[in-house]
């Protein structure tokens, strides 16, 4: 969905770009919606595009 922003490192750990390019917005939202365990939380600050998976980071 958004291979430049999210990638699975092995079987379990999800790596992500905390500050993806604005052009990735659509891909990021689609990837978050498609996450099988719904562990991706997306926040868009006013100034820039950024997402944060909070304490669940690393759990795909």
């Amino acid at each position, binding site marked *: 969905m958004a291979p430049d922003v999210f*990638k699975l*490192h*092995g*079987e*379990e*750990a999800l*790596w992500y*770009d*905390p*500050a993806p390019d604005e052009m990735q917005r659509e891909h990021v939202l689609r990837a978050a919606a498609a996450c099988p365990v719904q562990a991706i939380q997306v*926040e868009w*600050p*006013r*100034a820039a595009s*950024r997402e*944060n998976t909070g*304490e669940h*980071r*690393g*759990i795909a």
Partner: protein
Amino acid sequence: MRSNGARAAFKDSGRIVIVGASLAGLSAAETLRTEGFTGPVMLIGDEPYLPYDRPPLSKTVPIGWIPPEHTQLPRHETLTDVEWRLGVPATRLDLAGKRVHLADGYTVAFDRLLIATGTRARPWSNPAEASLEGVYTLRGRDDAQRLRQRLAAGPRRVLVIGGGFTGSELASACRELDLPVTVTERGSAPLVGALGSVIAERAATLQRQHGVDLRCQVTVTSLEGDAQGRLRRAHLSDGSTLDTEVAVVALGAIRNSEWLRDSGLAVGRFGVGCDAGCRAIDINAIVTDDIFVAGDVARFPHPLYDYQFLALEHWGNAVEQAQVAAHNMVCAPADRRPHVAVPAFWSSQFGVNIKSVGVPTAAEEVVITQGSLDDACFVATYGNEGQLVAAVTFDQAKWLEHYRRLIEQAAPFPPTFRGVDQPTRMSPVPAGFPDPTAPTHEATVVLTGYDPNERRVQWIPRRYHT
């Protein structure tokens, strides 16, 4: 006791200074505002950057997947009225005068202070060798940027000195970049200080399966440069030499507490002593009222672990302890909360997600309760005197919450429940932690049973080790 009136007054007019502008400092500032503190807040940081996240610096940044500047932590925009003093280290605390002295000569007055100065990378012990071109440490954004550039240039080999979490993750990054990498580890296996030898042996196998030239019970005795001051080879304790242009020194962290040494607080290499409410303790082990501590630099007694004083260099601890500290800074004394969260950390290396809850180093024994060591997909539980004290998962993070609750309830060890995917034989074996009095490179959790009352005898002024 502070009345509600006084509490309201502090919330309106008190001045709070936070020394340390990283994860703990940021979390505290956010909590102060959500708790309704409207007074002035100043954050002082020695680096020129707004708070950023460190875990990517040893994972996604060195492989070039994300640039270091993308690690800046979100949400600081909500702190529009917070004053930042970045790029200026604090040099001294005047406890009686309630002032922080800064390196640029300025002093900052406070009503309440939060100490969140964290740690720094332990430098290579020989300064001349440490200054050779090609010798790196990794702690901050600038370190990560330099290392990333060097790795991208394709060195013929990378030497990682120290097989703790940072060293192991860097070795993993090198292999992802297809760079030959050698890891030297003083102990019997990588991560042995944090996980014990039984699980650490599995980590060693993982490294070797991924092509790491892993050399255990070996230390680097010296680094040799050429006439131009560039690293050329390393001399090892087994008498061998290794030709390499890049060496990363990953020998653990040093707590940034030197600036407090004459402050009258209980401060040393162990960190800054505080109670479970994050209030700093002074040189006489008496709790102070207006000085608070949080994050990697804090050493606090944990009720779940016999009130032993712990310093936890974990991401989650920095956030949770800072939130408790900030709450206690502005609440009425009767509303103070203890910081009693069960410690937890994670690592991602060689494609395996390693997670831990509890304090593995508090354990005598370990047993695999789910999965098997052979396929690097298991839950290992750690026990001490019949009580469950920690659990470590390799690619089994989904079970972590379950084990955290068991630890909180002081569940028996070995666990008595019937789990899924249980091994046929479940007998605990010695966990194999190194002697805590022996020097180690990196212990994520430091358990020494430090008693503040003993500090007096160590309080004769002496040279600080770096």
